[in-house]
């Protein structure tokens, strides 16, 4: 008996609770039947193949179930996080905007799931939440890039060349206002004044402020981010 056979044997023993000899006898019985049928026309081999295929299907189904399980776990985790945020405001429906702001900050966007969950938790109609999310500029219904690039186009920045900065950023990143680069790295936004007017034109990547920016510097600034 090889090592492998021995281990299979011990497994079967454990599963069916039979003695070694009984198993061996059953195995021999099967084998003799198998040989008596002849190898080439053996329906058993076909049957075995079917079994094998079935096993593959089962494992795939299992994988699907697992991944769905993972997804569910992910969703539950997200909902737990949202619960935490809602609790911070003691479930007060007047704090809806504050809750949405926190969710936007934590997840980078507001998923449909989040809207549904909040709607249920706060007893606020789905449509009202949707109305708020689409009215205010901060909220996004699609995932944002890993880094948030904001180009200021307030008046002071505008007359000091802000539009050229925006244009260059659009060209360098290959996306427009409110879009995300295909690799999900950067999200570009134009904003109306960040209150740093004395330093215009300015751009902000995540929380890093860059003042008195020249169009040619955009590439260098963006290259700092992974």
């Amino acid at each position, binding site marked *: 008996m090889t090592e492998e056979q021995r281990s299979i044997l011990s497994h079967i023993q454990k599963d069916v609770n039979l003695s070694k000899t009984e198993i061996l006898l059953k195995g021999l019985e099967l084998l003799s039947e198998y040989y008596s049928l002849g190898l080439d026309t053996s329906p058993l081999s076909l049957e075995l193949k079917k079994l094998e295929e079935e096993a593959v299907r089962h494992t795939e189904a299992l994988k699907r179930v697992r991944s769905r399980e993972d997804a569910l776990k992910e969703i539950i985790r997200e909902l737990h996080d949202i619960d935490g945020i809602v609790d911070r405001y003691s479930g007060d429906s007047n704090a809806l*905007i504050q809750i949405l*702001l926190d969710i936007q900050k934590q997840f980078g966007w507001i998923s449909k799931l989040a809207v549904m969950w909040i709607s249920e938790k706060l007893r606020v109609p789905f449509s009202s939440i949707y109305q708020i999310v689409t009215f205010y500029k901060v909220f996004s219904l699609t995932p944002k890039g890993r880094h948030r690039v904001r180009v200021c186009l307030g*008046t*002071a920045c*505008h007359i000091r060349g802000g539009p050229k900065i925006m244009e260059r950023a659009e060209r360098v990143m290959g996306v427009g206002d409110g879009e995300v680069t295909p690799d999900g790295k950067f999200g570009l936004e134009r904003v109306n004044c960040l209150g*740093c*007017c*004395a330093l215009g034109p300015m751009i902000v990547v995540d929380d890093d402020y860059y003042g008195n920016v020249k169009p040619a510097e955009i590439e260098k600034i963006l290259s700092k981010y992974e």
Partner: protein
Amino acid sequence: MTELEKLRSEIIARGDPKKSIITVCASTGCSALGARKVIESLREEIKKQGLGGEVEIKETGCLGFCELGPRVIVYPEEIPYFRVKPQDVSKIVSETVVNGKIVEHLLYVNPVTGEKAQKLEDIPFYKHQLRLLLKNNALIDPKKIEDYIALGGYKALGKALFQMTPKQVIKEIKKSNLRGRGGGGFPAGRKWETTCNAPGEPKYVLVNCDEGDPGAFMDRSLMEGNPHSVLEGLMIGAYAIGANEGFIYVREEYPLAVENITTAIKQAEDHGLLGKNIMDSGFNFRVKVHRGAGAFVSGESSALMAAIEGKVGEPRPKYIHTAVKGLWERPSCLNNVETWANVPLIILNGADWFRNIGTSSSSGTKIFSLVGKVNNTGLVEVPMGITLRDLIFKIGGGIRGGKKFKAVQTGGPSGGFIPEKYLDLSIDFDELAKVGSMMGSGGVIVMDEDTCIVDVTRYYVDFLSKESCGKCVPCREGLRQILNVLNRICSGLGEGEDLKNLEDLSKLLKEASLCALGTTAANPVVTSLTHFRGEYEAHIHEKRCPAKVCRALVAYYIQPEKCQACMACLKNCPVNAITGDKDTVHVINQEKCIRCGTCYEECPFNSIEKISPPIPLPPRHGIKVKRKKKKE
């Protein structure tokens, strides 16, 4: 009350007047220029030189001169240093702190006289200011209530609670003629009285820090630099009006302001200055911070209150003012950050003192954010009534790069353009309104000859049309139509009828819009048409942009006699529209050129010319470069 005084004298006794204090501005502006690194290096350097017990490093609020940040002041000598870099830190510590010597190269140099300023007052930017509200920004660590208390903080609240009745507080504010700093200039005392007398309980007091005007940042600076002054003002107002609950609305773009005011509230609560039975006076007050979510229109009072209720921040018709029926249909008094910050000063020093500052119709000081094409940009606080000329030329140091002044725009997107002939106008609420502009929240945007008025007007209308909530038709559709016309004019497709249409649409907006966003939206259009009609006409009839800004009306041309064939423009052109080589003068292919202006900025020899109307000279290829002799 006595406890507060006890605490105050304790804090003051703890401080050693001889101790060196290094204050560094840690507000958004200076942080953007690297203040955080300066603070870190300072801490390390102090440790390294073993001065931990003798030197204190304080992170303070904004001092206004943001352009020259990061800013450091060394006390007790009060030496101001500008543009400090981490590598300058060891010198500041070893020379100024240890030896009392001045680090010359970090001082402010007056560009006109060449003198170096060893005190803040020696700098023209500060010399002409009257800093009542901003003064403490330089001295206080906004995250420490002790600093505020040491400088007399919450004294005014004590005075109001123990020596005055609510009626007397309102009377004092009315007498002071404090007018709302948020834009309208409505007398604050009258608003308080209305809310106080309005039927319904509970009453609310609110702070408006939804500083949405692009180009203005005084509220941010106060909120970040001295949050307790706003809080104290709000509490005095609440006491006078009879409110026990307040809200502070801060826009989302100001994370540091949110952080500092939240800390301030927590600390005030810990010290018994906020919450139940404040200073054993029996007065209860609590306050919540509400972050905005990015909507310009939410700065309007009824919209702001809707936002706090958790709804869409849209205005409603105000047949009944929010002072009577506001937040949750209850009497609600909303004032701007700067208005509230003035209140403790008035209570402490009296209405007469306040009335003596400023003009007869507008008392006190006003903080302006002086930005745009001016030499000294930043926050300035001046008495009402100062002339625009003094503000721009004395404090602002004139126009950048020696260019010519064209116009100044006050009051944000809804304000108007003021031309040179009105430069001697004294700034107060009424005078600005007379020339078709407004105080707004105090943005002063200076424009030079390189600024195209039509383009800036288009910018404002674009901004407002995007920010219009869309509830009423005149604002939603009117602004869109104005924008269409302006877009056409800027792209060289203007027609004779356009100016008439602009005027008609402006009139419509003013008469028929629901809220102030719409009724004032036409101000930039109207004032620019009045004072700069010639620019519009040049755009329409000559297809020429006098400031050479509007892209469709400008062409770039390389002057062959000036070009040094350095390849700078050629390499940087994003569309490869420039031809030439190391020995041949470069030529722009006008058909390929997208007029992005990159070449204009990259050329080290100023050989590229902007031409408007966009009819450049015919290109001449293959000219050999005439190099200028290098200076020995």
